[in-house]
C-alpha cells in the first residue's frame, strides 16, 4: 500500500496540478480575506444578500475571527478535491495507464486503497495550506484595522479551529470521494467532473427550491453540513450519517467496478 501511495504522490506533485490548485486557492484566500476585512463594519453591509452587516471590527476580534475566512473556503476546497480525485482516477482509463499500474500492482484493492489514501494526504496538505494562508492573511489584515488578536490564540480558539479544520477536511475528502467514484464509474474526467459540478452547483439548488422537503436528503447539503459542523436543516450527526450513506453507495459501486471490470483499453 505504501508503494502505491508513494507512486500516486509522485504523480500529484506535478507542477500543472499542484501549482495551479495552490494558485487558485491562494487567489481566493487573498480575495476573501481582503473583502472580509476591508468591508468589516461597512455602512453598506457585507452580507452576501445585501445591506445587512454581519462582520464588524468587533466580531472579527472574537475568538473565531482569525479563521473566519478559512471557514468560507470549504466549498472551494471541496470542488477542487472533487476535480482532482475525479481526474486522477479517470485519467488512468483515458491515458490507458491503468494496465501499467495493474501489471506492477496486481492487487486492485491495494491499488485503489493506495490511490485514495494518497489523495487524502494531498487533500490534508491542501487544506492545511489554505488554513495557514488564511490565518496568516487575517493576522496581516488585522493590523490595518487595529483588531485585537488576543482571543485568536486562546485555547477556545484553537479548539474551535481544530474542529473546523477536521470538519473541513472530512467534507473535502467527501467531495473528493464523490469525484473519485464518478471518475471510476464513468472512466472519463470530463464526464465525471461536469456531471458532479452540475449536480452540486446547479441541480441540487433547483431541486431544493422546487422540493424543499428533499433538501435534507441531498448529498451536497449533507457534505456542506459536515464542514459547517451542522446547519439549520442538518444536525452534524445527520449530515455525517447522510453523507456516509451516499459515500458508501457511490464508493461501493466504484470499488466493485474497479475490482471486477476488465481492463480492456
Amino acid at each position, binding site marked *: 500500500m505504501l508503494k*502505491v501511495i508513494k507512486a500516486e504522490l*509522485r504523480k500529484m506533485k*506535478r507542477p500543472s496540478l499542484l501549482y495551479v490548485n495552490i494558485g487558485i486557492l491562494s487567489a481566493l484566500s487573498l480575495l476573501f480575506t481582503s473583502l472580509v476585512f476591508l468591508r468589516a463594519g461597512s455602512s453598506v453591509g457585507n452580507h452576501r444578500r445585501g445591506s445587512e452587516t454581519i462582520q464588524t471590527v468587533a466580531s472579527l476580534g472574537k475568538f473565531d475571527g482569525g479563521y473566519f475566512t478559512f471557514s468560507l473556503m470549504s466549498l472551494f476546497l471541496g470542488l477542487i478535491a472533487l476535480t482532482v480525485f475525479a481526474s486522477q482516477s479517470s485519467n488512468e482509463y483515458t491515458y490507458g*495507464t491503468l494496465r501499467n499500474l495493474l501489471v*506492477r*500492482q*496486481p*492487487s486492485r484493492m491495494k491499488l485503489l486503497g493506495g490511490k485514495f489514501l494518497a489523495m487524502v494526504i494531498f487533500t490534508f496538505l491542501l487544506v492545511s495550506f489554505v488554513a495557514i494562508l488564511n490565518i496568516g492573511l487575517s493576522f496581516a489584515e488585522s493590523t490595518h484595522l487595529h483588531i485585537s488578536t488576543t482571543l485568536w490564540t486562546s485555547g477556545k480558539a484553537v479548539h474551535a479551529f481544530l474542529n473546523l479544520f477536521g470538519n473541513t477536511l472530512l467534507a473535502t475528502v467527501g467531495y473528493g470521494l464523490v469525484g473519485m467514484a464518478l471518475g471510476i464509474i464513468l472512466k472519463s474526467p470530463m464526464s465525471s467532473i461536469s456531471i458532479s459540478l452540475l449536480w452540486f452547483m446547479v441541480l441540487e439548488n433547483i431541486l431544493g427550491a422546487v422540493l424543499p422537503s428533499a433538501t435534507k436528503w441531498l448529498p451536497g447539503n449533507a457534505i456542506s453540513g459536515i464542514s459547517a459542523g451542522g446547519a439549520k436543516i442538518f444536525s452534524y450527526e445527520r449530515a455525517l450519517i447522510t453523507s456516509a450513506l451516499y459515500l458508501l453507495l457511490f464508493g461501493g459501486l466504484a470499488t466493485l467496478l474497479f475490482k471486477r471490470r476488465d481492463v*480492456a483499453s
Partner: protein
Amino acid sequence: MPELAISVRDLTKVYGEQTAVSHATFDIPLGTVCGFVGPNGSGKTTTIRMLLGLISPTGGTGTVLGEDIRSPEEYLSRVGAMIEGPAFYPMLSGRENLKVLADLGGFSYSRVDSLLVKVGLGDRGGSKFKTYSLGMKQRLGIAAALLPDPQLLILDEPTNGLDPNGIQEIRELIKELADNGTSVFVSSHILSELEMISEYLVMLRKGKVIFTGRTQELLGRQKAITSIRPEYQVDLGKLTEIAQGFGYETQIENGAIQIPAGADLGATLNRAAFEAGITLSSISTQQPTLEETFFEMTEDK
C-alpha cells in the same frame, strides 16, 4: 522451477456474442523467444491481457511461470510487459513516468536511469512524455517492461513506430535478453523480424490457435518454390511442358516458371532442358518466408 513460461488450456474470452479467443491451447518453454502472430482482431491482445490478469477468462485455464493466471500477484513481479502500445502520463517526464512504476514495484531509481540509457533515451529522460515521438514512446514502453529485470517479457507490437535502426536495436535487445535466459513472448506484424528471432511461434486466426510449435517446423511444412528462367522467352512453353512431364505443377510469372518443389529438381530439369536445346539463364530455389506462410494460413478460406 517451472519448465514452461506460459501454458494455456482451452483459454476462452467471450464478450457478449463475440468470441475474442476460443479454446486457445499452447505451451511456451522457458528461456525461448516465442512469436505471437495473427491478423488484426485475431485475439492476440486479448490473450496477452488474460495472461497479465487484466481481463478475466470466460473459460479455460493457464499458468505463467508456473502460477495460475487467476492469481497474477503470484507471478507479475517477475514479468515485464508492454501491452498495445506505450501508455504513460503525458505531463510527466519519461524518467518520472518510470519512477512511478519503480515506486509501485519497489525497484531502485538507478535502474530507471540505466534503462533510459539502454533504450536510447538517456538524454531525453527529463522531457515530458507528451513531447516524445512515437518511436521514443515505444522505447520508454520497453524500458518500463524491463524495470523488474523480468524472467518473462511480454511485448505487444514492440516495433510499432520505430525506424529501421530502432527495429534492429529491439531485435538485438530481445536476442540479448534471450541469451541471458529471459523468456520473451512477442507479438508483431513485422513477420520477417519474428522469423529472425523466434524459436517458437503461436499463430492465431479468428481467436483460434492454428499453429503452435517451433518456427522451423512451421516453415518446413510449406513447399519451397523453384524458379527456372530460360535464356530466350520463346522457350517458356516448351520448358513448361518438360516440367509438367516430370509431374510438376507450373506457373509462369515474370518470364520464369515457378514450380512448388525443392532444389533437388534443378539438376533434373537443367539436364532435360539442355537435351531439348534450351539454355537456362537461372535456377533458384526459395524457401517460403514466415510472411508467405502466414498469409497462406490466415487467409479467409
